[in-house]
């Protein structure tokens, strides 16, 4: 594998490609990162009020869940295509699509997390004179954190992989490189971009896991068995896999 040869031979693995196109790869990675981060952050900001409304006002729960489930069946390719006339060719198309996808997972998991808070804990807090807001922020949300974080991890990992499809509007981060590589049959570009994408998803997942550990110190001393709680499963099973 001498430097120039692998580009000429169109090998899958090519150090020369990585060296010569480093700036291109970096730019794509950065775009990928910010699209994913902005989308998930916005999704989280929107998911909280939606989940709280759905919990507070029971008639809204059904429609909210149904609406987010329907959103989920819209293929990413179609979602971006549908948003194109709304935003024109811009990153907003991809970000909006990803926000809508992450809403599904986040709303479900926030609801599940809040429902999993023991009634005794609520009663105790009320008895101590906690108002509804203080109860929410100091008792319910911390206890719901594991489920919320599970949802956040799924949403983030899915967003990393769904961003690639944004290549059809030219804002797919590393997906752009995969897309152009597909059309020009440039193997090294497709493989390198795909690998960076997977590494990014795994790194994001581990980072969020670390954050969850830091935020929930009280779960660390409960032994391993508790960590495989059945409830976490049911909420985690709905995640959309990579597309």
């Amino acid at each position, binding site marked *: 594998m001498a430097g120039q040869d692998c580009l000429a031979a169109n090998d899958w693995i090519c150090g020369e490609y990585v060296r010569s196109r480093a700036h291109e790869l970096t730019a794509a990675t950065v775009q990928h990162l910010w699209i994913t981060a902005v989308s998930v952050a916005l999704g989280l900001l929107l998911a909280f009020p939606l989940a709280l409304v759905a919990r507070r006002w029971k008639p809204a729960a059904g429609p909210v869940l149904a609406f987010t489930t329907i959103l989920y*069946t*819209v293929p990413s390719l*179609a979602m971006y295509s549908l948003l194109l006339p709304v935003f024109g060719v811009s990153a907003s198309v991809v970000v909006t699509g990803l926000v809508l996808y992450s809403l599904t997972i986040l709303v479900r998991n926030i609801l599940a997390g809040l429902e999993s808070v023991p009634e005794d804990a609520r009663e105790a807090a009320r008895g101590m004179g906690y108002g509804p807001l203080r109860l929410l922020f100091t008792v319910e949300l911390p206890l719901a954190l594991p489920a919320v974080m599970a949802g956040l991890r799924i949403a983030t*990992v899915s967003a990393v*992989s769904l961003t690639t499809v944004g290549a059809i509007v030219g804002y797919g981060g590393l997906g752009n490189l995969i897309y152009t590589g*597909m059309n020009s049959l440039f193997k090294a570009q497709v493989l390198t971009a795909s690998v960076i994408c997977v590494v990014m998803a795994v790194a994001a997942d581990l980072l969020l896991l670390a954050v969850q550990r830091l935020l929930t110190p009280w779960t660390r001393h409960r032994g391993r068995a508790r960590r495989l709680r059945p409830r976490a499963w049911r909420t985690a*099973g709905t995640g959309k*896999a*990579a597309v």
Partner: protein
Amino acid sequence: MGAVSGAWTWLTTGAHWAGTDGVVHRLGEHLYLTVVCLVISCVLALPVALWLGHVGRGGALAVNLSNVGRAVPTFAVLVLLVLSPLGRYGQWPTVIALVLFAVPPVLTNAYVGMREVDRDVVESARGMGMTGGQLLWRVELPLAFPLIMTGVRTAAVQVVATATLAALPGGGGLGRVITAGFNRYDTAQVVAGALLVAVLALLVEAVFVAAQRFADPLRHRRRAERRVRRGRTAEAATAS
């Protein structure tokens, strides 16, 4: 909502339904892809998941697999396969990419379903002298059925939605309606294609929910339990 009415006009034009680029043909391709991928995924994943769940090993593998599956972009896998020597074999890259995508939810849910079967029931069955095979078929499988089906249903809906990506490297399926509309700057056609896929995915979901109700080995038991519960809540409501 001009886009929706445009899509409606597009959908109600008969010419768009006929021919090799027509909706009927693409829908057939899409369904064929979905069914083939789903069957292959179940054949691969279910025996493994049921066995692992039965012997109670490999939990970490079964769980982490679905996380890894989510992290790998199907689009990237598809393009990699198309560029690989397999790319010469028409549909195979799409089928393999979709199978890789569908196996994790099936496997993970089936495994969890098997592990969540009440340990006391399993112990009693063993105490009654059931063999491992009998235990699997008569006790664990019926009790794990709802979760197993949930996994298959999740995979089915996701495969329907994701199969649209096959159109990007030039494969078949309903995605072609979308990409063709995209290339022509025909918003109506893009919306129509998206609606077709979304409706198909929802239909698949509905069919699976109905099938699950119908095929659940414990459906009578569960229905009776629900009735008892409802009866109790009704009594409680009238009493208070």
